[in-house]
Structure formats: C-alpha cells, structure tokens
C-alpha cells in the first residue's frame, strides 16, 4: 500500500525541481490500493473463515502511520510498515519481497500504480522477486470453491483467467465499486490492531530523479461567434497553425 498526496493537492516542487514539495500535503491511501484493500476484505468476508487475515504492507517512514492506521480502521487485520523512504519501484518491490517471502500468503493484491509517480512497476517486480506469477490489470477477482478467477480488461473485450495460488494480483478499476469508509468502531479498534515496524532489507534504488517539470499553463481560450466561420478558419490558420 502506498501513501500518496490527496488527489486534490496542488503539486509543487522543492528548490531545484528534483523533489516533490510535501509542505501542507494531505496524505491518503493510494486509491488503487484502497480498492485492492476493499476487495481483499470482501473476499475474506465471503470466504467463511477460509481466508484468515488481511495484512497491509507499506514501505515508508513513521509519518505514513496515520494512513496505515486508516487501512486498519477500514478493516485490515494487521499492518507492516517497512521503516524506510520508498526510493523507487525496484527498491520498494525488494523491500516487500524481503519482508513477506517467508510469510504464508495466498494473494498479494496491489494497485496498478500509485497516483503520485504512476510507475506501474512494483507489482510485476514483486512477483518476479518472489518467483510467483502475476496478473496485471485485474478488473474482477473472485474465489469460488477455492478456485481463483480474474478478469482482465483487454482491447475490445475482457479476458477471464483462472490462477493458481500464490500470485500477485495487480488491481485496477472494477474489482470493487467504491472504497469503504471506516466506521467509528473501526477507528477505535484500529488502535489495538498490530502495526509492526520492520527494518528494511539491503537494496539499491536503480533510478535517479533528474527533474520534475510542470505542464505549461493552459493558454487563454478564444471564443468565435458561431456564424463567423471566416474568422475561425483564419485563426486556425494564422494563430493556431493547425490548418
């Protein structure tokens, strides 16, 4: 699970443009991960006890704990925070793999990307490091009689696959309608649920940020009267230079 800036945050960059300015930013659960968590909890509820627990795992510093606590309030049974800044996708995938490789798990659900850096890399890398399969762009994830099937959106249709456990499920829109809102009871109970902090494993980051650049501001919109076709054509020709 990634901790990301609220989607309405105004994005600014610090000093030399190589880092994201976090001043005053409201942090939330990455929306794709929130959807993954929602589906995981539904699956657990539907499983009549066959699924023992849902664990949230996140790579981040102590400041991310309120967001992790929210995942517990929503209903996860326990959480693991790997105590290091998430440097890049390779580094994060290494951390998660290092942390869970010896734990018993059936499905690792992760969002298709994080809404901040949009790398779409962690899920695939994680499966590779764990030596298990992954399925990307999952829009439905179901378990019936112990058989796991997933839907994938593909060009012009959908693909239905049956998958063997364990595997990494890379989740996109569709697996759950809406993320859950925690209840007051959930918020109170989240305090008592385990949030285990683990030391990071040795890993490199393979990328280096050179610069961030804002999109150029949108140019002013020019309105042309509906019957003034000539002016429109002239503007498209001389100013916009598209014809």
């Amino acid at each position: 699970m990634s901790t990301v800036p609220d989607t309405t945050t105004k994005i600014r960059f610090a000093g030399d443009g190589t880092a994201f300015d976090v001043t005053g930013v409201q942090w939330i659960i990455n929306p794709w991960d929130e959807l993954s968590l929602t589906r995981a909890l539904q699956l657990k509820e539907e499983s009549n006890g066959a699924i023992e627990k849902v664990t949230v795992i996140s790579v981040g510093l102590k400041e991310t704990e309120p967001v992790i606590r929210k995942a517990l309030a929503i209903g996860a049974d326990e959480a693991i925070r790997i105590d290091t800044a998430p440097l890049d996708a390779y580094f994060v995938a290494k951390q998660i793999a290092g942390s869970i490789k010896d734990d018993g798990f059936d499905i690792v659900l992760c969002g298709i990307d994080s809404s901040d850096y949009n790398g779409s890399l962690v899920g695939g890398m994680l499966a590779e490091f764990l030596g298990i399969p992954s399925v990307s762009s999952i829009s439905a994830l179901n378990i019936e009689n112990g058989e796991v099937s997933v839907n994938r959106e593909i060009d012009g249709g959908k693909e239905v696959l049956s998958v063997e456990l364990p595997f990494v499920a890379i989740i996109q829109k569709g697996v759950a309608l809406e993320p859950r809102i925690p209840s007051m009871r959930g918020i109170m109970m989240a305090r008592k649920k385990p949030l285990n902090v683990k030391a990071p494993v040795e890993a490199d980051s393979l990328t280096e940020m050179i610069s961030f650049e804002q999109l150029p501001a949108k140019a002013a919109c020019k309105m042309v009267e509906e019957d003034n076709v000539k002016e429109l054509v002239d503007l498209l020709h001389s100013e916009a230079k598209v014809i």
Partner: protein
Amino acid sequence: MDFELTEIQQMIRETVRDFAEREIKPVAHDLDEKAEFSEEITKKMGELGLFGMNLPEKYGGQDLDTLSYIIAVEELARIDSSQAATLAAHNSLGIGPLFYFGSEEQKMKYLPPLCTGEALWGFGLTEANAGSDSRGTKTVVKLENGEWIINGSKIFITNGSADISVGSTVQAVSGDHDGKKEFSCVIVEKGTPGFKTVSMHGKMMWRASDTGELYFDDCRVPEENLLGKVGQGSKIMLSTLDNGRLSIAAMGLGLAQGAFELALQYANERKQFGKPIIKFQVNAFKLADMATKIELARTLLYKACWLKDIGKPFAKEAAMSKLYCSEIAREVADEAVQLHGGYGLMKDYEIERFYRDQRLLQIGEGTSEIQRLVISRYIGC
C-alpha cells in the same frame, strides 16, 4: 499547550468528511427542496457509528471523547445542516438526558437501539408560549395510581415526529410549591395512548430534518418512566442544554467552513473586469476575515470540548462557543452570498441553502440573547 488533534480525531474528521461528500452532498439539494427527511442517510450515519459516539460500548456507543463528536457534527454541517441537525439533536438532546439521568434499566432498554440510526428520540422542552422562558411551561404531569398522566403540548421538537422517532423525553410541571413550579422529566414512547406527534412543515431552514409537535391528552406512562428524580426537570434541562450548545456551535462552525469554501472557490472562478474577483483586494479581505473568524470559532469551541473532556466546568465556554459560532456562521454565510453576487440568490447555488440554514443557529437551543444572559451571569454581571 497542544493544539494537535489525536490520530483518532484526525481520522474521524477525514472519515466523516468523506462520508458527507460522498453520501450527503449529492442529495442535499433535493432533500432540502422537497423538505424530505431521509431515513436512508440517518441509517447510514448509524452504520458509520455517529449516534451515541460518546456512550460506553455496553449501551451501543463508541466511547469517543466530546471533541471527536463535535468534529463529526462540524464535518456534516460543512456539507448539510439538516443531517448535522438530525445527528446533533439525537445525540445531545435525545440520547444525552437518557444517558446522564436514566437508571441502569432505562439506559439498557432505550440506548442501544438509539445508537443504530434506525430509531430517533426527541427532547420535549419548548412550548408555544415557553421558549426562552422555559418556566412558562404549561404541560403538566401528575402521578396517579402508579402512572404519570401528561397533558399539554410541545413544539419545534427536532426528531420528534419522524416515522423512525420512537419517543421523547418530556419536561412538564409536576408540582407547585408556593407559586414556584417544580419540573420533572418523563419518558414517553411512541404508540402510548394519548400521545400524538405532528410533523411541522414550511421551514425556512433545516428542511431535510424532522421537526415536530407533540400532543399529550391524558397520556399515561408507567411510574418507572420518570427520568431522574421528581423535581429534577430543570437540572436535566440545563445540563442537556449545556451539552447541546456545543453541538449547535459545531453546526455554526461547520456551516461557516462550508460557506467559506464555497465562496473561496467561486471567487477564484468568477471573472469580472478581466480577472478572477478574488484578485480584488476588497474580496480577498472578505475571505481573510471569514477565515480568521472561523479559526477563532474553532479554537473557542475546541477549548470548551477540551474542558468537558478533562472534567472541568465548561458551561460558560459552551455558551460563548454557541454564541460566537452561530453569529459568525451568519456573518460568513452573508459575505459568501455577497461574493456570489446574483448567483448567490439562486437555488442552483449551494450557498443559498447555507444562507437559510444558518439562521436557526442564533435562535435554536437558546437564542443569542439567552447565551449573552448566561455568559453575563458567569462573569459576575
């Protein structure tokens, strides 16, 4: 000093904000327009755990502190005063007296269902001729053959007459000692013969909340339906209103916050004389003043909650919070309409509803004048 919210309080703010934006905002306009009370939203608020937030778990509550509850009311009022009113009235006036003054049997019987959002409870205090002067109460109650017999009527009772309203706590005159009225509170359940409720329509504000009249015509309830002791009516009322003031203050604060945000957004989008109107200092200063008032209101209200949570007297600060938050709600909503210009007068714009909704806050649960009276007594006038 520490002004930092706890992690739980912060999470409650985010959660209730999320809920209000997702579940209430899309329907607030229509419910207001049709003056329709929503059982569905009430039930959802119950599922979220907003009813009985301050109650111990054994009564179905969440065992949260006062400030957590006040933040929840504030966040609802930021989006829709009607839903905030349903919540605030039910918790402070419906559940409150039963919890603080009920016997263990009464609490176990009444409170758990009232924490679910599937049942509401009213507090019958105001009468047609007894508003600020509650000693003018005419409704009478007397004990006869092991039953309390109630006669009279109540008016403006929030949550008193919805289909899911299951009863009310009623204050009535139980005796007269040398011209001095004695008050007692009794519990009256829906369906009791002689007890009738009528919904009130034609409200300017809080149109999607339930407001009712209660009528008692030789209404008989068992002796054990007395809440607290005989003659404790005034004490129950005063203590209930002290708590209620905090939640009305929270409604003022939340409404002001919502109105401010609407104005800020509109002033950024609306262009006149070639630039967004927010770029004109006359408008920017309005917004600066609004933000300052909101900050002051929040600080005062949260301090009153903090006093209550640490067990110190808070009645003076509660009255000050109710007075200040409700008055700045009016000022902020008024300036927010001004920033909207002509569009602010149209129902298509949310600010119009905020402008109407704020007007109750200086009247309900003790007018601004009564708050000043309370405060003036505390400061030795």
